[in-house]
């Protein structure tokens, strides 16, 4: 990572009131994001999606987001008024969700949806927006952009739907893309295509990518750096290529519980959860890695 981070987050907490008292979905997450691919891995309920939603201001009341710092290019974006947040969301930070079936408007053709997203943030006339939409569809390797432009979401496959989502999210040229399980609903062959497209776009445009996933092997191959989350906290941070040499027992446990094609075992290792993973002090090396300290 070089220069000032695109996004700098310190001590992010997301809290929901429940009948049993406050529930903390995210408990003090801190990280910096540069022009890189940052993987966020964890099991369901670890707070990885909630972290992404908190950055975009998508946590609905009564949920509460607090942080010591949440800066985009040095400007605080924590709990901005909805009107100002809307200019950032989609424009400067975009999000691709898991299933294109639920993220595209089912009663609107694909092309006009991309045009709408683009004009909302970049302005400009219809002709320019149309050209941009077609250009973006071509950028995500859709062979016949003119034809796909006029299709409804139910007329496209899952993989194409996800590529359309990525085209729409990238049309306003955001600085940061948050991808929340972008390939989990896709088949392996289509998954490779979508990942290649995201990989090329991030590299060529110099974007920051937050890649949220439960798939450790995929993150190890796709990302530059990985945060491992457990019970709302980051328990380990390491370069993606060193993921298989992870030290934290939770990360190790997750890796060992995966069946592997190249290493047959009779029984899979079962993760023994320990209470102190929830509370133990955060590794000092992780604190040192953050310019400006934890708070």
């Amino acid at each position: 990572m070089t220069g000032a981070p695109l996004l700098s987050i310190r001590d992010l907490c997301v809290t929901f009131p429940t009948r049993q008292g406050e529930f903390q979905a995210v408990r003090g997450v801190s990280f910096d994001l540069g022009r890189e691919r940052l993987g966020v891995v964890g099991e369901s309920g670890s707070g990885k999606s909630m972290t992404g939603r908190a950055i975009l201001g998508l946590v609905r009341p009564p949920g509460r987001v607090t942080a010591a710092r949440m800066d985009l290019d040095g400007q605080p974006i924590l709990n901005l008024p909805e009107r100002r947040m809307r200019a950032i969301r989609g424009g400067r930070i975009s999000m691709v969700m898991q299933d294109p079936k639920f993220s595209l408007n089912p009663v609107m053709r694909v092309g006009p949806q991309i045009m709408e997203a683009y004009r909302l943030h970049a302005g400009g006339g219809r002709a320019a927006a149309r050209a941009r939409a077609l250009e973006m569809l071509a950028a995500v390797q859709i062979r016949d952009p003119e034809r796909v432009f006029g299709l409804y979401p139910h007329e496209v496959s899952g993989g194409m739907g996800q590529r359309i989502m990525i085209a729409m999210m990238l049309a306003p040229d955001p600085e940061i893309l948050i991808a929340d399980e972008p390939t989990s609903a896709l088949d392996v062959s289509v998954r490779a295509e979508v990942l290649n497209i995201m990989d090329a776009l991030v590299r060529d445009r110099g974007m920051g990518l937050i890649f949220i996933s439960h798939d450790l092997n995929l993150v190890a191959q796709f990302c530059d750096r990985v945060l491992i989350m457990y019970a709302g906290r980051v328990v380990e941070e390491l370069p993606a290529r060193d993921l298989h040499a992870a030290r934290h027992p939770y990360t190790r446990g997750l890796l060992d519980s995966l069946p592997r094609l190249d290493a047959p075992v009779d029984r899979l290792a079962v993760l023994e959860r320990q209470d102190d993973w929830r509370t133990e002090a955060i590794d000092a090396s992780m604190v040192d890695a953050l310019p400006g300290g934890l708070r």
Partner: protein
Amino acid sequence: MTPMLQVSDMDVWFGPPHARVTAVKGATFSVAPGESFGLVGESGSGKSTILRAVVGLIPGWSGRIAVEGKPVAGIGRDRAFLKTVQMVFQDPYASLHPRHSVDRVLSETLALQGLGDVDRRITRLLEDVGLGRGFRFRFPHQLSGGQRQRVAIARALAAEPRLLLLDEPTSALDVSVQAEILNLLKDLRAEHQLTYVMVSHDLAVVAHMCDRLSVMQAGRIVEIMDAATLRAGAPREDYSRALIAASTWRRA
């Protein structure tokens, strides 16, 4: 030896004649007693459809299905069939009735199978799937995903079947929970001499669980191979090799 399950020249289709979609075309395979057989392929390749046609959930099929040498027809399945063959579905959030307690799920199945001694059997089933009797009067919303899948497995085992059809039994679960359920399924197979037919899109899971597997593409069985061939990445057909290659992403 009579195969536990024999499927020959099976076609399965959906929709009325003028808009017919054939989801499975000419599938032929056989599974020996005590074997664990996998079906892999992309979504839409017809792997789950085969299982659903075997248990009689799809009316439109032709060809031959025989369980322990006894052929079945149409969608009717007699009591002897359902005592031999049971199925576990993908999503334990959807396959359990939200307002039926674990006790009711299991006792209803036992009653349908005409099995008595319900109390003892339920306790035994819950212990078999690693839940313990404390879970007997819980409702699905009081259970985690892994616990629900254990209940679904207990329900399938209630009939004391010999053939278990597993449709993506762990793909809705976290990896750590997946490991627990796969271990449980392995133990149960050894303990009760079960035969498995397992559908999965995860090649590593199939290699771990199955002795042999068939690769499906667009409704056809492309190739049947053993797990060692899969692990060695040395199948005969190009499509199978492409599927294995695609399961790990590498920067282009």
